[in-house]
């Protein structure tokens, strides 16, 4: 089990390092996409058929354990949100946040419509 956990840790640290370097290089002043790089690395390693050790139970168990811990962590995370601050914030903040989310969903909906058209055209 420890092999999977250690591999996961290695991916996270390497990804974070990549994100920090990437952020520095393009001058963002913060790290960019460290977690995203780590995920890409993990997917790459586990999709690589030459790396046989990723199929071993000692590796798989560590990965699947932390994968299944994801939702409990999300629940703990929601319990740490500043909901009181959110509910007592001014209307400008509420409107700005809501507008950003609403517009994103609208864009998705439009894309989704196009998606359907495309599929039907293919048929």
């Amino acid at each position: 089990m420890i092999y999977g956990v250690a591999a996961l840790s290695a991916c996270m640290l390497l990804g974070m390092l990549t994100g920090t370097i990437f952020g520095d290089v393009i001058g963002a002043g913060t790290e960019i996409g460290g977690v995203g790089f780590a995920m890409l690395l993990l997917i790459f390693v586990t999709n690589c058929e030459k790396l046989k050790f990723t199929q071993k139970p000692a590796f798989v168990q560590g990965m699947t354990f932390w994968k299944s811990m994801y939702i409990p962590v999300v629940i703990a995370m929601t319990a740490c949100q500043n909901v009181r601050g959110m509910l007592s914030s001014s209307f400008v903040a509420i409107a700005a946040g809501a507008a950003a989310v609403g517009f994103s969903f609208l864009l998705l909906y439009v894309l989704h419509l196009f998606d359907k058209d495309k599929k039907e055209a293919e048929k």
Partner: protein
Amino acid sequence: MSNFTQHIVNLLSKNGLVAAFLFSGIVTAAAAFISDKITKKRIHSSAIAIFLGLFAAYIGGIISGGEKGLADVAAFSGLAILGGSTLRNFTIIASSYGAKMSEIKKAGVAGFISLFAGIISSYVMGAIIAFAFGYRDSVSIATIAAGAVTFVVGPVTGQSLGAESTVIALSVAAGLIKTVFIMIFTPFVAKHVGITNPRMAMIFGGLVGSTSGVSTGLAAYDPELVPYGAMVATFYSGFGCLLCPSLLYGLTKLIFH
């Protein structure tokens, strides 16, 4: 008696992480029960768990007056570890175990484009709202607009532009609202806006951005889609911090001086 309660509180706060595991387990069980018996499985139990978590955070905020929800209450302080950024990132990365490289290659470009479309559209929406509420100086408009990108980008932008602290606080609040709205509404609208495959999940992650919002919202709808959405979303705040104080502020300044 109060001595006994004190002992319990000490026990829970000293073993915070373990107490947080227990909390998460109880909330999960309660959510499963409500989902099964009360909503007859019409509402996914993870969506209910998220509601319960947010409600607990609200109660915690009222009791403590702090900003970290229930984690500011001593007995539940361990939630800040379990729900903190380290373990969150760790489990998000673990969630990508089993994701397919081919899906990512297929939708990578679309995800990347949606990232920029998402940052720009959120910024524009935030700017319009700020203008509508009477803000006329470009620094305040840019800061509030950056807050509509995420609650990280707002203060980063505000500080680099020298915005007033009240405006910065506003931008954090706007980002917070965005995150919580994504958490709450994603499970309900996902099907209607077509977030049903890895490709659309990646586009969704790029458009709305907030990593915690995207990963929570998708978890409550279809956990299989989490890694695809979250992967793109993790680039959002970083690129937001890059674009908002520079290019987007520059354009804002051209319009509002």
